């Protein structure tokens, strides 16, 4: 059981506190309700570029990192389709410096042309390093536009075209800040060696004076239901073929979310998952295979991806994945397997509680979903999934007309 207190400042900032005296550290997590789905289609990648700019100095503090290092702190941040999340850990005696730093960059950034120019370069190198200079690294760039035609999930967080990043101007950065970065668009969570009273007092002192701002309303186009199977083939100079299959699923807060989560665990939760057992161990079609959900807030995707053993035909591999998925409809003997993935989910949840950073990030995100109590009842929800729910969900979502397939074809046919 994770105990926490919540309160909201007058300016709209939501604050959550969980006290854990077993650590000398405090974790501070600040989530901004802005992600790549909030970008202009002509300027994608801005939310992530902006995350980089957040370290380039704020109104009263020329450099974010130095004062934090001076008090023994460490920090990082990430951006995804839905949110931008900043976090730090700091020895508890110096936690006030964390409040000072985070509140100042919420108050106002120091918008400098020099910093913008450098970070455009850094992000370009990040793009090269993650997507272009890795085998199979560009698959994710191809996958999203195949699955989404309308919704902004159609572009990746890094941006649909690196030219968008290169063209960003300082004025646009400023506008982005004032329309998304604000106390009334953020959730602050503190976990670790801090009590409710001082967390509240410090939040009030440092964040209280920041005025709330007009947030750009979110009017995202709804993705129309997919009605026909989509297939994309493309070739690359890589050691073996790879296969990516993805299906549209419901939103994060839908009833089916934990059922799909459980399905991905049945398929690929550990070495004993069905895909690994049948297609890697028994039939030796894949060298590795995985299944997961994108866990997006708006309707997301369930993904199965694998690399083929040499000599295996893509069509055969694809058929076998479908067989394994259809196999989930057969409820005979599924009981013990469901018990297994439920036990493992429970065990993973307990392990994740050993980290104050995990607890802080989860509390913030669940608060954003409108239900922080998920931190305590996720395991029960997961446990309540029945075999009937599994087969109903498989037949509803995991069907060919709702599926997109990316055949990533190796040009090194000599190996076969």
């Amino acid at each position, binding site marked *: 059981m994770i105990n926490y207190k919540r309160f909201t400042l007058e300016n709209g900032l939501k604050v959550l506190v969980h006290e854990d005296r077993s650590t000398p550290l405090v974790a501070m997590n600040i989530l901004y309700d802005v992600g790549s789905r909030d970008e202009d289609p002509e300027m994608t990648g801005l939310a992530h570029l902006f995350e980089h700019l957040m370290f380039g100095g704020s109104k009263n503090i020329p450099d974010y990192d130095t004062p934090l290092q001076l008090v*023994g702190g460490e920090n990082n941040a990430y951006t995804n389709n839905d949110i931008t999340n900043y976090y730090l850990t700091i020895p508890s005696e110096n936690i006030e410096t964390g409040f000072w730093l985070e509140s100042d960059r919420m108050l106002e950034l120091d918008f400098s042309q020099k910093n913008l120019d450098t970070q455009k370069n850094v992000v370009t190198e990040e793009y*090269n390093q993650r997507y272009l200079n890795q085998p199979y690294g560009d698959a994710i760039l191809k996958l999203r536009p195949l699955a989404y035609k309308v919704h902004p999930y159609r572009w990746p967080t890094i941006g649909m075209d690196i030219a968008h990043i290169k063209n960003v101007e300082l004025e646009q950065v400023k506008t982005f800040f004032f329309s998304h970065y604000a106390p009334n668009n953020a959730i602050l969570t503190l976990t670790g060696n801090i009590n409710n009273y001082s967390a509240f007092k410090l939040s009030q002192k440092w964040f209280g004076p920041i005025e709330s701002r007009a947030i750009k309303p979110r009017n995202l186009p709804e993705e129309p239901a997919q009605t026909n199977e989509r297939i994309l083939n493309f070739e690359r100079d890589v050691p073996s073929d790879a296969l990516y299959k993805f299906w549209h699923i419901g939103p994060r807060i839908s009833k089916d979310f934990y059922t799909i989560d459980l399905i991905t665990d049945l398929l690929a939760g550990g070495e004993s998952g069905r895909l690994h057992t049948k297609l890697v161990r028994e039939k030796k079609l894949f060298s590795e295979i995985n299944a997961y959900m994108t866990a997006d807030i708006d309707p997301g995707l369930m993904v199965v991806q694998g*690399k083929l053993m040499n000599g295996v035909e893509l069509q055969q591999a694809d058929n076998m994945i479908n067989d394994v998925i259809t196999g989930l409809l057969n409820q005979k003997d599924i009981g013990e397997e469901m018990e*297994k993935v439920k036990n493992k989910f429970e065990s993973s949840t307990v392990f994740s509680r050993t980290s104050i950073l995990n607890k802080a990030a989860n509390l913030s995100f669940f608060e954003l979903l409108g239900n922080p109590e998920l931190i305590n009842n996720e395991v029960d929800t997961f446990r309540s999934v029945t075999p009937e729910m599994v087969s109903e969900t498989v037949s509803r979502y995991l069907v060919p007309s709702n599926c997109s397939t990316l055949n990533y074809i190796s040009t090194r046919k000599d190996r076969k």
Partner: protein
Amino acid sequence: MNNLQRVQPPVFPVEKVVIPEAKSLKLDNGIPVFLIEAGTEDIMRLEFVFKAGQIKETLPLLASTCNMMLSEGSQNYTSEELNRILDFYGIFMNQSAERDSANITLFFLNKHIEKALELSHEVLFQPAFPEPELNSLMKKRVLWYLVNMEKVQNLAMDQFFESLFGKHHPYGYHIVEKDFENITPSILTDFHSRYYTLSNLAVIISGKIHEKTIEFLNALFGNTSLKKLNNDGSDVLLKGEKQKKVHIHKSGAVQTSIKIGSTTINKRSPDYPGLKILDSILGGYFGSRLMKNLREEKGYTYGISSSVSSFDLSGYKVISTEVGSKYSQKSIDEIYKEIKMLQNVAVTKEEMSIVRNYMSGEMVRMFDGPFALAESFRSAWEFGLDNSYYHRLSEKIRTIEPDEIIELAKKYYNIDELYEITAGSE
């Protein structure tokens, strides 16, 4: 409230880090066990460490394959059964074989301790090394290997180790595709019987330790007497290659991987804590000089770092980055410039105080929670060191002076001795 002065709140020196002592004891037959009590959840981390790393292998891939094959079938279970049972009880089992040691680490809820121990005994001491599982593992590993060889950072790192430690030493040799064909069940059985022995084992346990842990361990591992330790290992001499600059061509690469470094002292040397601090200033954290210069100032790279690492018989330091291909030479020049600066110009008081406090904070993180504690314990214990190593490091962080940094930079970063390995398209 509205006239809040937005200046940095008072800075408190990071309190001297509290390092809990591991409780050291022996099973009935003498196997050493270390217990570290920590954490709030009813979970445990249990690590079995053997001196069974690459240094003991007579063929490339032998140590890692032996370690991976432990969970691929035993006397009483097939690999599928083993994995299904582990998953059923929510037990996580990590296997790894490094340069010097090999280990199996289990993470489990305390209520499943008996199952976890029973399975670990099975995996560690009754593996079957079935041929079909070995064949399919090696086929998969060839593909993983080929994928890895597409990445410039791996091409450069492999060459770096070969240049530093030599083509024939287990610390240095490259893996080639043919190596995956040479491992047989009988070679594995032989390696296992030599090195995965009770006399070659130590157990490190942390978490909210179950009260019957020692009783259970004794029942499974403590009642067989220990045979004499087999201490042989590679007799190949550690010898670096002559050529200091090597470029590996990878056509089409849009970034170049750069590795600059050399062999160096390891944890057992009295200079090591000072070298760690020097390394932090150069490239060991986000505010380091290399990061500030190459990323935050020039935007040549997404990241650059330097590190110092210890092996049993040696150690190495490396500066590591991937930069846009057109920035490759400029980046190398800047790296040498930063090294020379450390050799010639005293670090300012301000920078010293940033690095002191940052590193003190890092030390707090190194001893925070049951998993971090066990890892920190192991990484000193493996070198025959105890917590006094960390106390020395902590003391050095607080007291080192700029003069000593200059001396260390001159002594350990002689530019003529550094290897410069690059992999990329130009």
